[in-house]
């Protein structure tokens, strides 16, 4: 009943949701960054599965873009975390909630 594509997508979904849970419960900014990476990875998996399903290169192309983006994001994100850590002396993201509506 489950074919290959579905199995791969379900796995991607599970990984994504795990990343999401982590994102929601963590207060440490580095952990939140890791959660984002988990979710990005899950999304990449979904693209690969789709590429395999259709036999088209576009899925893999998209994965490469995700990879590039993840790299850039991590570098900028880490730099930001560094700044926050210097400013606030903590990695607690709730401490950085000075923005008030």
């Amino acid at each position, binding site marked *: 009943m489950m074919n290959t594509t579905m199995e791969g997508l379900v796995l991607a979904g599970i990984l994504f949701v795990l990343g*999401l849970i982590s*994102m929601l419960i*963590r207060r440490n900014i580095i952990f*939140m960054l890791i959660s984002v990476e988990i979710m990005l990875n899950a999304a990449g998996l979904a693209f690969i599965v789709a590429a395999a399903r259709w036999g088209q290169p576009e899925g893999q192309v998209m994965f490469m873009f995700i990879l590039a983006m993840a790299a850039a994001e991590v570098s900028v994100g880490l730099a930001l975390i560094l700044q926050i850590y210097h400013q606030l002396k903590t990695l607690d993201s*709730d401490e*950085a*909630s000075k923005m008030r*509506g």
Partner: protein
Amino acid sequence: MQWIYLIPALPFLGALLLVLASGRIGKTGVTLIGCGSVGIAALVTIVAGLQFMNSGQAGYVQHLWDWVSIGTFRIGMDLRLDALSLVFTFVITFVGFLIHVYSTGYMADDPDFARFFACMNLFVGAMLLLVLGDNLLLLYFGWEGVGLCSYLLIGFWYKDPANGAAARKAFIVTRVGDTAMAIALFLLVQHTGSLQLGTVLARAQELWTTGDPTVVLIAFLLLGGAVGKSAQLPLQTWLPDAMAGPTPVSALIHAATMVTAGVYLIARTNALFVLSPSAQAAVAIVGAITLLLAGCSAFVQTDIKRVLAYSTISQIGYMFLALGVGAWSAAIFHFMTHAFFKALLFLGAGAIIVALHHEQDMFKMGGLRKSLPGVFLVFLIGSASLAALPFVTSGFYSKDQIVWLAGAAAGGNAFYSLAAVLGAFITAAYTARMIFLVFFGQEKTHVHHKPGPVMMAPLYILAVLSTLAGFIELPHTLGHLTLLSDFVSPVLPGVVTVHGGVALEWGMQALTLGLVALATWLAWRLLAAPFPDGLKQFLKNGWGFDDAYNVMFVQPFVKLAKINRRDVIDKIYTGLAAVTRGFHRAMSATQSGILRWYVMGIVMGAVIILSVIIWREYAV
């Protein structure tokens, strides 16, 4: 006669000058302007009146300028001199002049001397406009104008809030009647397309047959205006309170002139009332009931001015009765004599009040016969006239005519006669009681200073008039002279007698004479007699009308106003604003800065969107 515009213009001018010159011209200047303007107006009236009588015209109309002119609806500033307006104009200017002269003595020490005369002049001007106006709008102009002056003068001593309240009551209660009258005017505009008296009355006869609902409605609404101004049932409550004003004001406005405006109005629009018999009957019934109720109230008052006030209501009731039965000229006759003797009585009362240092309670007077002989004499003459002492007083001739016609005229019946005779009895009783209380018995308050000649002279003149004015119209039994009714006959239809002739008149006269004597004797006997307290209080308060109106209209209005001071409608909008603000609060609370909540929001959104997709695409 081309000078008649001066008659109302002069007092208006006087008022204007007094207002503009406030405080700059001294007491003499104020006296000159105040009395002079009315005096000259009186002279002009006499000259114009003589010219008018010689000319033999039925009416003279002077067009001054177009007031309001829209298409076919044209109303001019037109003055009309005819028999009816001449009688009223004469009384107003002449009695007005005497009262002005009297006031210079009465008000001599008042700091607001100039304001008093400004208001009085304004009043005379407005009243003259009322009676001289050739159209109902101009009449309404004067009608409201005298209401304003009445308000200003009742509340003349403004420091006491009670005076202010009385003044406002007078204005507001009469305004209720005025509103009815205004609606009558709208009806007339709608149906006759005009308010010009001649046109209206002529068109009325073309348009409506007797008893047509429209004309009946108009007549009833006009009656509403008349009862308001003339303090008849059910709008009579303001007049006794109006005695808060200075006594000359009571004499001029609340006895001689303004309160009889209702009589003038009904007499003026007699054609409309003739066309609506039910309204005319209502006039008579209102008059009959009012004269009895007010007479009873007058009998138990302790304040001398309130006695006279209730007496005025009662006497105007007679005039209404006369109008109601179709005895038009009798009403006008009684108006004239009443103006003389009631002004005399008020001014006499004023002299007493001043002499006793503003004491108005009759039970604190007494024995003034000796200390104020002059006043006693004129007061006695006035009282005799009021009580209709036969043969020598004007009041006898005018009232006798009404008493007789109440039964004998076309619209009359036994009930009216009974009311009129009973009224005469009550009148005599309260008059006698007043005389006994004030002038006889022990002296209870010392006389401070006697009224000077400025005050006494008008009293003497009025006393003479109160006696002589009656002789222009003598009953069938005593020579049958009809000067006045002949004079007004071009304007007012003559009376039709149906129910008995001279014999009835004899009977009525004899009955009245007997009753007056009986009443005087009874009053003397009852002076000290105990009166049931509850009843006395009830009568004294004017049959509880005030309390009833208070509960029915005043209290609910005030309460409603108090409750809704903040305007409930505004709550709708502030409520709307509050909802918006609440929404704003809720939304801004989500901008907490806590990153995880944002993610939570995104997840929720995703869940909801996916749910919607699943529900729409795949569920049943």
